């Protein structure tokens, strides 16, 4: 296991999937299965010493249960030491700058710093200045690259299993991303990641939650749910922020449900083989009907399981690929 290949990885940080080439994304996805195996061990130690003695700092400015525990578990299964730091975004405006805080973390000789921050660009800003290896765990509504990677991995695994083709990729696979596109870092990372892997992505949501120029990122866009679902191999449902109606972005949640909820009825527009995904946490029966979320087409919990393995793969590649870094903006 300590011989897991890291050849081909040359980056210091993981900031966004926009930066990565198809080859780099595939390297991560190809590295992940070995880590899936570790987590699934029935007997023996569910751990490998690949990051033994390394310090992984989880620095979260926004509340997060899923992503944060996934990163923590990934680090622990690689035998790293973990340190959790939480902070509110507002504290950075009052007191210490982000750069100063990271300098302090680094003074404790951290190796990887995982950062979740409410403002776009925070992870890149830090990565360009500091020597820590930064993993972006979500910056504003810019990117959430590890989510995009675990989603791509989940889709690929599903395709390989269904088609009984261990070499199958995402070429030509049609993915419909449904919901609040404007404010979604998950949507952006998925658009970059999936299109680089050859998938065709269509985004769908109310016109008020569709950001300008989104098609230029390489996807199609529609406000018609049925049109989006037609021919979709994957139906990716985003979480809708319940307070959107207060900002005049939606009239009511009721109307959102009418037009955009993925449920048994609306899913009739999709081919029968289509799978359903969600980054969590789900607003049950708002963007996604309970019976669909819990039904046979849902791979929501596989996403969570795969999340740990994909994050292990990323940390392993970052730490063990040698130090001939390329700069993040290359």
């Amino acid at each position, binding site marked *: 296991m300590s011989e897991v290949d890291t050849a081909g990885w040359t980056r210091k940080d993981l900031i966004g999937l926009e930066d990565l080439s198809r080859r780099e994304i595939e390297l991560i996805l190809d590295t992940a299965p070995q880590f899936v195996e570790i987590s699934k061990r029935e007997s023996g130690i569910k751990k490998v010493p690949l990051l033994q003695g390394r310090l992984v700092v989880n620095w979260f400015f926004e509340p997060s249960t899923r992503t944060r525990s996934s990163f923590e578990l990934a680090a622990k299964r690689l035998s790293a030491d973990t340190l959790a730091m939480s902070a509110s975004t507002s504290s*950075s405006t009052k007191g210490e700058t*982000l750069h100063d805080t990271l300098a302090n973390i680094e003074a404790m000789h951290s190796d990887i710093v995982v950062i979740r921050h409410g*403002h776009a*660009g*925070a992870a890149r800003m830090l990565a360009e200045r500091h020597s820590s290896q930064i993993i972006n765990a979500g*910056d*504003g509504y810019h*990117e959430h690259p590890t989510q995009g990677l675990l989603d791509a991995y989940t889709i690929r695994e599903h395709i390989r299993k269904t088609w009984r083709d261990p070499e199958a990729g995402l070429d030509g696979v049609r993915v419909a991303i449904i919901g609040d596109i404007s404010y979604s870092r998950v949507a952006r990372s998925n658009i970059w990641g999936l299109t680089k892997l050859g998938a065709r992505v269509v985004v769908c949501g109310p016109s008020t939650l569709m*950001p*300008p120029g989104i098609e230029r990122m390489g996807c199609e866009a529609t406000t018609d749910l049925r049109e989006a679902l037609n021919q979709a191999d994957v139906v990716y449902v985003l979480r809708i922020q319940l307070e959107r109606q207060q900002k005049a972005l939606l009239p009511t949640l009721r109307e959102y449900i009418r037009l955009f909820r993925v449920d048994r009825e609306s899913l009739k527009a999709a081919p029968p083989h289509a799978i359903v995904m969600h980054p969590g946490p789900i607003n049950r029966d708002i963007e996604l009907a309970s019976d669909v979320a819990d039904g046979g087409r849902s791979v929501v919990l596989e996403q969570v399981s795969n999340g740990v393995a994909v994050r292990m793969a990323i940390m392993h590649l970052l730490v063990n690929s040698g130090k001939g870094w390329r700069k993040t903006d290359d």
Partner: protein
Amino acid sequence: MSLVIANGHVIDPASGLSKRGDVLIDNGSVKAIGGDLNGDERIDATGCVVCPGLVDIHVHFREPGFESKETIATGGQAAARGGFTSVVTMPNTDPAIDNAGLVDFVMRRAREGSPVKVWPSACATKGRAGKQMTEMAEIREAGAVAVTDDGSDIESAWVLRRVLEYAAMCGLPYLAHCEDATLMEGGAMNEGYMSTRLGLPGLPKAMEEIRIDRNCRLAALTGSHVHIQHVSSAGGVAICRQAKAAGLPITCETAPHYWTLTDEAVMTHGANAKMNPPLREAEDVEAVKEGLADGTIDCIATDHAPHTVTEKDVEVQLAPFGIVGLETSLALVLTELVEPGVITLEHALARMTNRAADILNLPAGRLYEGGPADITVFDPAAEWTVDPAVFASLGRNTPFTGRTLRGQVRATICDGRVAYQA
């Protein structure tokens, strides 16, 4: 003590003068323009342009209140280094310049510390709150040259109408920062593909266009002179063009970053490419150039807006708006407008001298015998690379770091005294 600026290309856009020669300065005024003039001292201007001291009617010198960003003295030095002999300061300080006593303070600080002329503008409403008018008659007597709530628009059309009527009575133009703030939600950059890609909240062009339009219509209603600040969008240029064709009493300005950069600069320069209005898109850059070429845009102003390095060294969304401009403006005009042939050297200089001065009736921007010896000498061919570390401004916040430009100021003379010499 007399001074001769010898053997330069003397240009005075107002009179159409454009010939090789000497300029003799004595006792604070231009004594003669001609050939073979002699003085006690001599600046060799061979290969250089000698023109009226440049005029910038939109700068922020931050004093009082924000002296770690800039002071009237350091701002004045930055102006001198950029070739400017007259600048108009904005009143969004702390306290805001909303009474005659504060106007007086700014003018005193300028006399004490600035090597160039500082003409203050004052608030149109008390505390820039958009509600109660300032005492404009007294403000005018104290020396203010315009009123404005720059940094924000006056929300109420009722209040703005009365401000325009009253300001005109007092002989003060109104400088309009056109922005419908109800269209923004924490906006940090132009709304478009780039904001979508970077995940940053956007500032749609309609924010400025709606208010340029409204403010032009209020100029029509009142007959008062409205000067539209920092036009950045194609729509904004078009509205100004239409308003002028309809004979409305409006003038407008743009800033160098609006014809040199697009919103893509936010990707590479982050918070140092954040200002309000924001950098727009390629079509807007073209429209701004067209507006300069066809005369829709009357003058070039920098909106020089210094901030400390620390204030800008944060997440883009949290950083304050604004960039410095005084020390790069002339070179950006020469490199990006004159050299590619967008406008001629004479037209470009007009927009930085007499046409800028005329908007606010400043006794500046002209070079003639008997006139004030406010003169800029620059080498139009000299290449240099922008390095904010050497700025005279306290601000280092520029998106032009590392850019190679042509056109460098050799000397700035203000009231016959050397304010800056390279």
